[in-house]
């Protein structure tokens, strides 16, 4: 289990990164925290001609509040997110989801940008990004562009990032008033990727659901919005019973549900309902 040979670059500016990506013509890979890429290299499942290490890009390591959103540099580690008071107070869902990811030793190095770019269907961050309508800031040969979370995750391990582009920032809107949130997941062991997870964000006004966002992960190729659940909630009085009936729709519209050694598609669809119900109940409590 030793990596294949590759060249190594450690640029310090975005311009250099993009130039290097172009120079390697789609054969290079960006290295962020390495917590997903390094196992693949050790197993020789990835064979880039070069690694472009963002580790020296210290200016991509930040968390700050800007225009109603929390802007997070792509190279910010999960450890920093987990410990950020700003994140804890202004976007507690992001904080909570971080603690579900792997273990402290992995979170010390794994980055926010890396998790988004990796786009593992069972990962927490992509689901949270979709649930919160995060925005992805991308740099490329033609300058900077930004992509909505709903357009960023394309399919299994595939994002809107082009070969010569780099993700530089993720902008996560702060949690609005009177809005509750929850992240629920079932994994075989603590810290494992989820078999299924559910994120719920519920805006309540006078006891009734004003806004609802439910996103499932670990079920399909990308985080999936459970729109039928959301629709069943809007305008209704929040109650356990409502959440139960709404959650029954969680498996509706799920496409190509994953089936693997840990969970059959049938089980995953069932978990989607259970976790949606639990997430809604908890979100309502917090709202």
């Amino acid at each position, binding site marked *: 289990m030793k990596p294949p040979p590759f060249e190594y670059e450690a640029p310090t500016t975005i311009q250099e990164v993009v130039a290097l990506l172009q120079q390697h013509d789609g054969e290079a890979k960006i290295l962020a925290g390495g917590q997903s890429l390094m196992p693949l290299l050790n197993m020789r499942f990835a064979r880039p001609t070069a690694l472009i290490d963002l580790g020296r890009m210290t200016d991509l390591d930040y968390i700050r509040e800007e225009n109603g959103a929390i802007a997070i540099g792509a190279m910010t580690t999960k450890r920093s997110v987990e410990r950020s008071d700003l994140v804890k107070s202004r976007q507690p869902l992001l904080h909570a989801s971080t603690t579900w990811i792997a273990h402290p030793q992995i979170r010390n190095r794994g980055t926010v940008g890396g998790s988004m770019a990796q786009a593992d269907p069972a990962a927490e961050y992509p689901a949270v990004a979709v649930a919160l309508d995060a925005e992805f800031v991308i740099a490329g040969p033609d300058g900077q562009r930004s992509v909505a979370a709903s357009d960023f995750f394309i399919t299994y391990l595939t994002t809107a990032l082009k070969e010569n582009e780099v993700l530089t920032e993720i902008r996560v809107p702060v949690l609005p008033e009177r809005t509750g949130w929850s992240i629920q997941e079932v994994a*075989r062991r*603590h810290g494992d990727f989820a078999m299924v997870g559910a994120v719920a964000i519920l805006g309540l006004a006078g006891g009734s659901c004003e806004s609802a966002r439910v996103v499932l992960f670990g079920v399909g190729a990308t985080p999936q919005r459970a729109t039928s659940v959301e629709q069943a909630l809007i305008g209704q009085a929040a109650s356990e019973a409502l959440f139960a009936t709404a959650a029954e729709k969680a498996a509706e519209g799920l496409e190509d549900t994953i089936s693997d050694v*840990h969970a*059959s598609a*049938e*089980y995953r669809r069932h978990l989607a309902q259970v976790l949606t119900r639990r997430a809604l109940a908890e979100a309502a409590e917090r709202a």
Partner: protein
Amino acid sequence: MAVKIPNSIDELPTSSPRFIGHRVKRVEDTGLVTGRTEFIDNVSMTGMLHCAILRSPIAHAKIEKIDVSAALDLPGVVAVVTGEDAAKWSHPAASSPDGWGTYCLPADKVRFVGEPVAAVAATSRYIAEDALELIEIEYEPLDVVSDPVAAMEDGSPLVIEERGSNVMLQRVFNWGDTDAAFAAADHVFSEKFRWNRLGANPIETYGCISEWDPTELGITVRGAFQSPSHMALGRAMTFGLPSNKVRMIAHPHGGSFGGKGGVRGTDVSLLLSRKTGGRPIKWIEDRMEYLAAGGSQAWDRRYEFSIAVTNDGIVTGLKVKLVDDIGANGEGFGAISAAKPLAAFTGPYTIGAAQYDLSLVATNKAPASPYRGMGPPPHNFALEQMMDIAARSLGIDTAEFRRRNFIPKDAFPYIIPSGNEYDSGDYEAVLDKVLALSEYEKLREEQKLAREQGRLVGIGVASAIEPGVFDWNAYAVVGVQGTGVPEGATVSIDILGKVMVRVGFALEGQGQYTLVTQLVADYFGLEMEDVSVTMLDTASAPPAFGPGGSRLGVAITGAVLGACDRIRVKMCKVVAGLMQTEPENIQLMDGVFGIPGVSEAQMPMAQVAGTMLGASHLLPPDVDPRPEATHVWTAAGRTPVDEEGRTKSYLTAAHAVHIVLLEIDPDTGMVEIQKYVLVDDCGTRLNPATVEGQTQGSVAQGIGAALLEEYVYDEDGQLLTSTYMDYLLPTIHDVPALVMGEVVTPSPFSPLGAKGCGEGAIHTTPAAVMCAINDALVPLGTRANEVPAAPNRLWKLIHTARENTSSD
């Protein structure tokens, strides 16, 4: 004069033992916590090359062509070997049942995913792995058989054509009149069980550095050997060398649990050494190699169990049918783990008649290997489920049901139907203690309340025997020869009275060097610091097997105490000569030789040693002047098998009862263990801290077995759990805090009355957890008969049961 080995701590020559029976600090630990202990991958040798092995991506295929030329052209590559070299320089694996062995690199066809087909020696592991990518192999895929039941059918693809069938062994053992017991029974209960493949997974994989001596025609291998002598014999057979030309140097290793494996890689690296003119070749198995084809996989079983029971809850007969999927061949000794259940076939119970219908079947999967427990854990799991099924059906509490069937304490030594003899025990005392510790009645009350709330709370009570101190005769029914497993130690005292003990096994984790130190220190009245332990290689060690089959603690105690006794006898002679009396008048006590009661006639051991080595003029003429002795211990009274496979195999029989309280989340199928209480009896506890550690570690492995661990293959024989992201080892979150208690019934047969306890809880834990799960499922009228009880399986059971009730 016969060597005297004390059967109890009281018989040691000390007025009060300071170390034996106490929780002493381990002598192994300083090197380990500082990272200084020399594991095999820490070693480098001059001229050493690194080996990487190319493995088959296909489960069953003919090898049409292998082209290694591009690999050989890569700078840094020194040699490549293939099946051609193996056929020229070696023989098929000797570890398989007769005729089922294959070459370490097959020339004709591959039989499982991960099977080695070629190997490279290069200046670094990185380059060796680069070279593997340059080897071109043409395969012609053959039909795959991955299901052992299908493999038994006529017309199935054959794993080894020459055998004409995939059935390695099929035999029905009858012990007592089982049919009569079933005919006379008031009730017969039958159930099928499935135990999926799992395995040892020590955190250090296997590794070795192999050297072929081209001039002497001999080999030297350094490595992480669980049993160096056994590896040495195997290599001698594989390479057609005289066994005295094979030298194995064992290194401390990071666990084994029976599954260190490494045989093929060792042989492949030896071929490379031969091809490179004798350069040292290092092969460190990586984790993916281990998972796919190391000593990683064990116990892939399909069971049918039946028990005959009387109205008052006495089990009178047991029938077991087992189809054991051994994988591509028996080279990993997997075949023998179906034989070990004979040593405790009927568990701790008085069941008088039993039948074992056993089939060992080859499939296109990795060869099955040993794993801690060596076969009985799945058997115990199934037997304990049967006990519960019967108890529930008769309306008897599951703990009480076991009590009724326990072998009574005055019945020992007790011979079970399958022939083994249990040395001693007090099973009711163990049960009483665990019931009290767990507040069993209260647990049942809590469960009642929980059930009223619709919660799936279960209590498992499981009881099992741990056969200890294995003997080869236990495996005779699957073709292993031999009776007795010698273990030797040399105790050597220097001129200053300091002691060196030389043994034939390396550190593996169970703390045997500490045990040796405790024994010698107490025997001669020394401090632990005055004793050191060294490992000898197979060229210089006394006969030794090393750890395995819960034997080493007992066996090494016998060897060390035997050697100490031999020295004592010599020293008594010396002292008697000096004091002008007869040796019989001299006694050793607390490190001093002398005539009891005569205060001026006393001589500390160090002074005796000093005299023997430095004052020859004082010695009696006929005395051997070396304060040194070797003793080779083996269990007495072991017998060859009879025509029904019966034998006195394992010397000791430890016993345990575990009680587990758990809850299943019916919506997710996830299990939460809320309470885990166990009481065991493994005779005299030589180092209680070590026994405790073995038990705790074994419970964790048992929980892994019951809930997490599983090798999954698809129909094409592809392994789907090839990394630690999918093969799930228990973490600190998965193992509950344990409440532990003990009962001590010393063995009447063993040194100091200790019983084998290294395998420990894995004999009982999977059974206990599964009993609890099935207890939780009772209100739903469903059962979990498959291990591991993964959440998707449990959810499916619960879901189906609920659908059935709602549609009723």
